[in-house]
């Protein structure tokens, strides 16, 4: 059962597609982590669930400029999040920034969705890392807003490339997997011993190939990649 129920369209969850979500255990940035096919990372030792780049209200953001994208993304992204929360029952939730697609996103949030986020904040400690778009998010939604968070020797921040061991987002990594001559693009986790870049969590959020120049210089060693499939996470 979902811990939270949502009005509106059926959330596009792995479970709803007729399968059971299969998580993957992985040793990343020196911690034992669980990679969730929703695009979240769960850190059992800290009972912490990490997501990045939710980009809530992407549809309405484009609609403002005349491009009428389907208005279902916030509902679906939050459904995805509610599922991941139900799977791992975390004590803490960290959103690594760009939680909204633009600075006015929180104002456009529907009441149901606002209530859901408030419920998250009541049930667990919610930390909003402030990304490009969401300085105001925490004030309207509850939870704490910080620029970075240190936890068990790991720094959580939005933009990768800082000091020390870090978990970051911002770049929306995607991997190209060539299957029988057909190239498929999938969201992915990418990281080495020192740094992990999280996939974007939002349902309408596109990806940047990990071969892109933006990722160059982030790694000390050849990074490992885990691509997100329909129901599971695959090491590439």
């Amino acid at each position, binding site marked *: 059962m979902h811990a939270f129920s949502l009005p509106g369209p059926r959330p596009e969850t792995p479970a709803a597609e007729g399968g059971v979500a299969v998580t993957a255990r992985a040793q990343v940035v020196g911690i034992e982590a669980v990679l969730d096919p929703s695009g979240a990372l769960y850190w059992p030792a800290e009972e912490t669930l990490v997501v990045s780049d939710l980009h809530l209200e992407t549809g309405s953001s484009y609609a403002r400029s005349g*491009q009428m994208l389907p208005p279902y*993304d916030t509902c679906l992204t939050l459904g995805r999040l509610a599922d991941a929360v139900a799977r791992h029952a975390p004590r803490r939730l960290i959103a690594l920034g760009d939680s909204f697609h633009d600075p006015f996103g929180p104002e456009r949030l529907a009441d149901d969705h606002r209530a859901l986020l408030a419920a998250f904040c009541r049930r667990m400690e919610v930390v909003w890392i402030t990304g490009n778009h969401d300085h105001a998010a925490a004030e309207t939604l509850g939870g704490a807003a910080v620029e970075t968070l240190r936890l068990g020797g790991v720094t959580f921040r939005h933009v990768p490339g800082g000091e020390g061991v870090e978990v970051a987002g911002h770049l929306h990594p995607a991997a*190209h997997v060539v299957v*029988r001559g057909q190239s498929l693009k999938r969201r992915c986790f990418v990281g080495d011993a020192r740094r992990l870049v999280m996939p974007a969590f939002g349902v*309408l959020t596109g*990806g940047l190939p990990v*071969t892109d120049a933006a990722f160059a210089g982030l790694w000390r060693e050849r990074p490992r990649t885990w691509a997100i499939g329909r129901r599971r996470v695959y090491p590439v």
Partner: protein
Amino acid sequence: MPEPFAGWFASRGWAPRRHQLDLVEKAEAGRSTLLIAPTGAGKTLAGFLPSLIEIARDNRGRNAPLREGPHTLYISPLKALAVDIARNLEAPIAEMDLPVTVETRTGDTPQNRRRRQKERPPDILLTTAEQVALLVSQADAERYFSELKVVIVDELHSIVTSKRGDLLALGLARLRRHAPGLRTVGLSATVADPQELCGWLVAQAEGHASTRADLLVVEGGAKPDITILKSQARVPWSGHMTRWALPDIYALIKAHGTTLVFVNTRSQAEMLFHELWRINEDTLAIALHHGSLDRAQRRKVEAAMAANRLRAVVCTSTLDLGIDWGDVDLVIHVGAPKGASRLAQRIGRANHRMDEPSKAVLVPSNRFEVMECQAALDASYLGHQDTPPVGDGALDVLAQHVLGMAVAAPFDPLLLYEEIVSAYPYRRLDWETFERVVDFAATGGYALRAYERYAKIRRRKDGLWRISHPKIAQQYRLNVGTIVEIPNLTVRLVARRGRTLTRGGRVLGTIEEYFLNTLAPGDTFLFAGDVLRLEGVRDNEALVTRSKQKEPKIPYYGGSKFPLTTYLATVVRGMLADPDRRRALPEQVRDWLDIQAERSLLPKADELLVETFPRGNRHYLVAYPFEGRLAHQTLGMLLTRRLERMGLHPMGFVASDYALAVWGLADLSTAFDGAERAMGDLFNEDLLGDDLDEWLADSVLLKRTFRACAEIAQLIERRHPGTEKTGRQVTVSTDLIYDVLRTHEPDHILLRATWADAATGLLDIRRLGEMLARVKGDIVHQRLEKISPLAVPVMLEIGREIVHGEASELLMSEAADALVREALE
């Protein structure tokens, strides 16, 4: 013919041709007319003559020479053609000293000239479908077109089957409202159903039988002289590169003044050009022309061709239409033509004068293509045509047009609907669909009405729809048109200095991002006739260096392969079934088919032959529907899904234009022994139900189709004021939008548009459905001990997609020998 025209013809020693006089007569009677004539018949001049006569007469009597807008619009499918026609009109106008002005307006025309064309309109405006859409969306359109008398549409046969045709049809419907007496003239090559085109040219009235333009047909002059290449070399069993015939092709080029060498795909063009230069001992001037080459490079080739400096051009469909070259002595068609009408059109490119036969040689790439070439040749002599029918108008184009009409002026939905259904492709559009399209244009048309406050167009109290903000008009204009670029990268030649790459080398052309994603830095591929090495990707550019390597990966251009037309497929099936017609085929091919008849069987024309046999440790199923590669690919996807569900665990499949092979570990001969399961259960029509639906969820082809629809319907913008987005930079992924829509709003209007495209486009579902219906009860299942001769070609396709280059060609020929021995022993 009035003066000075009669005198002008006489002074050049010409007599006006019958159809030229006929068209003048039709014009005097105010009749819209379709003129069907072969190349070289003076079709274009015929189209313009009535306008020249009328304008000259009007302008002589005019006190104020300034008009509100043009008298005649000429629409061409190619920008270059419009420019060329303008040049060709100059001569007669100057020689007769006619008071007639002619100008062109295309996407390349600078702003100041466009403005001037508004202030001082020319008598004749030569333009494109996109420009018509822009012109009718302007606030002064009604005044500007108030004096319009004639619209001439050139190469009508080519435009009506595309989305550009739909856009133009809608534009014409609007022009008819501004200029009620408007006359249209269609110029076309021969088509299967001229009556459709006649309908397309005039307004359709609701509830009435289709109204039509008059039809004038000029019979072709001399029959073309077409032969199938006779070579000493062995025709291979499979493959598309036609390497076997290279020496013969080279000899033909050498023996003729100027040769056009047509191929079906860009990769074939690249390969053939590369190989011809390898054996070009006489350094004949052989050039290359295809759509991915840099535009400047293409123009150079065209200019050299026009100046008679080339001996041969290896080209794709980019040269199917357009400028007459003059002296082409020979057309070589490498690979089967895939369609009888396409072949006729291409051969027509060699026609200098109507009464001289044009000469063409067909070069089949493999044995099946020998049959296909023979079928096309027969059709050509019989004058049979297989141009596709005009389909229902696309809904994405309609959405764009509706927005454009709100940009022009506030519209009354009832009046706009009436106008739209007067356009031939939209004559069957129902009111409910129209309303949904308007709703889509306004707020995206979603069940969850979340975007009312951002609506692009709104219905006001007076009942009229108008744009909500002037910037909507600007956005519309930037994104008008139906040509969707597939995401491309510029290919730039750089030099490597140690570990760094130099900046700013020469641009060689563009390449599809889809293909590039399958390459890793260091991989080589063939492009612009050279073997290139991918060094890396920077912004929107693929940086390459020249490579000395001889085994490149071959460029893959998705969608550039034409499927075999239904007509040719039927003829080939008939040929297989008819011993008399088989006797006309070359000996090698005949022998092959005779052994097939002995070992397995040759299906009757209305039968579907399915063979199952073991080979190695696998079991194979080979079917021969002859419905073209696209439909076979879709069928392959569906069959493997169904076999999977039957617990037979297929491992893969491969499709050609003629056949389809599926393989796995399970014994398919016993699995379909007719007792528990029959082959008919596998090829049941219900394949197109749930299986198809499920598969489509993941289909890359459908996502590409959706992307095009979303851009044309202006759901997402290709260009935004101030920026020029390329496919790569569109930040929101249309694949993700597609996923969301499919799950949560499966009957959205854009998905309907996508589905309609898929039915006839990349997935060819309609044809597959017709085939499944046709063969119902006529499936012949042959359980064989080993591979049959007919199966050899498609079996050779297995693995072809992953091995490339010369070494693999050797591998393939070894594999071929082994398979052939097996099949024939």
